[in-house]
């Protein structure tokens, strides 16, 4: 195990991502967690979620980072820790070429994460999807409505403890 970890940290993508993380750690200090050398997608977590928007803006605009592209934003449910979260896959597309994933978490009930829809346009619909499926809200999102489920749907379908409703507008839902 130790040896494979040694090897994975030698992957060029991981080394690049670590350099990115070092820049952010220096700038934001305790708001940024330790670096995870996951070979598939190296990531770090934003420990002070209220600073996520500043971090995002810095990642996009700093000449050393230039994360011009958000590839994906997904929601995650952590029922044991009573948390919800998002994972953002970012890339400096056509500029510096490096990639990193950022995780942000919030409370499971009534949790709020600041929206980065104004930083990366991709985030607008992806945040709506995360809201639709998990129920966290994104503060200052331009148009936070359900995107896939009907607007009057009950519950958040991708939560681990989701139970489907019995009827929808008088139509039986379950099998």
């Amino acid at each position, binding site marked *: 195990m130790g040896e494979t970890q040694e090897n994975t940290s030698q992957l060029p993508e991981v080394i690049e991502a670590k350099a990115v993380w070092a820049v952010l750690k220096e700038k934001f200090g305790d708001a940024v967690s330790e670096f995870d050398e996951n070979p598939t997608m190296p990531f770090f977590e934003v420990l002070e979620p209220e600073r996520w928007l500043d971090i995002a803006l810095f990642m996009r605009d700093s000449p050393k980072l230039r994360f011009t592209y958000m590839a994906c934003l997904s929601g995650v449910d952590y029922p044991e820790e009573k948390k919800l979260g998002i994972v953002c896959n970012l890339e400096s597309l056509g500029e510096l070429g490096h990639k990193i994933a950022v995780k942000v978490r919030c409370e499971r009930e009534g949790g709020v994460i600041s929206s980065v829809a104004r930083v990366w346009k991709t985030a607008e619909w992806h945040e709506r999807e995360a809201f639709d499926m998990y129920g966290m809200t994104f503060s200052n999102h331009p148009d936070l409505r359900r995107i896939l489920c009907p607007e009057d*749907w009950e519950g958040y379908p991708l939560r681990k403890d989701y139970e489907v409703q019995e009827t*929808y*507008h008088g*139509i*039986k*839902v*379950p*099998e």
Partner: protein
Amino acid sequence: MGLLDAKISKHNVLVTSVDNVMNWARLSSLWPMGFGLACCAIEMMATNASNYDLERFGIFPRASPRQSDLMIVAGTVTMKMAERVVRLYEQMPEPRYVLSMGSCSNCGGPYWKHGYHVLKGVDRIIPVDVYVPGCPPRPESLIGGLMKIQELIRMEQIGISRAEALKKLEEKSMDPSQLIQEARKSAKAS
């Protein structure tokens, strides 16, 4: 009907019943509503296109429910779509027919257990005349289903209900298992 091939040269007289003429007219120009819901719709489009050419049966999709007499429910009916399907159905003039194409629309298909957003069978909201099984059904199966709709129309008479026509169709249909068995046997032998 073969009338056009029969080379009617003299001034002949044809005698038939009103039922026959009306049924013939209806079944020879079934106009489905042009809408598809998921992967099955791709197969339906392929059936409409030149390889399978539904137009030879007088079947071609219309852009409005008000001009259609057949609804092919081709694909996954989500809960969000279900109410729209009902509304479209209600906009169709009678007599109207519904063909449910594919497992999704028949019973929820692959979303039977965990598809929280899928209606488990379009027959929960509108009456279905013919079900075509498959995921997706091949164009041949869809054509088979359309032929069944035509047979159903042939069973209709002035004054009998759709349910009675369906019953007549059921009585007339045969169980294909015998034929399938024989086909299998001969395929093995050859």
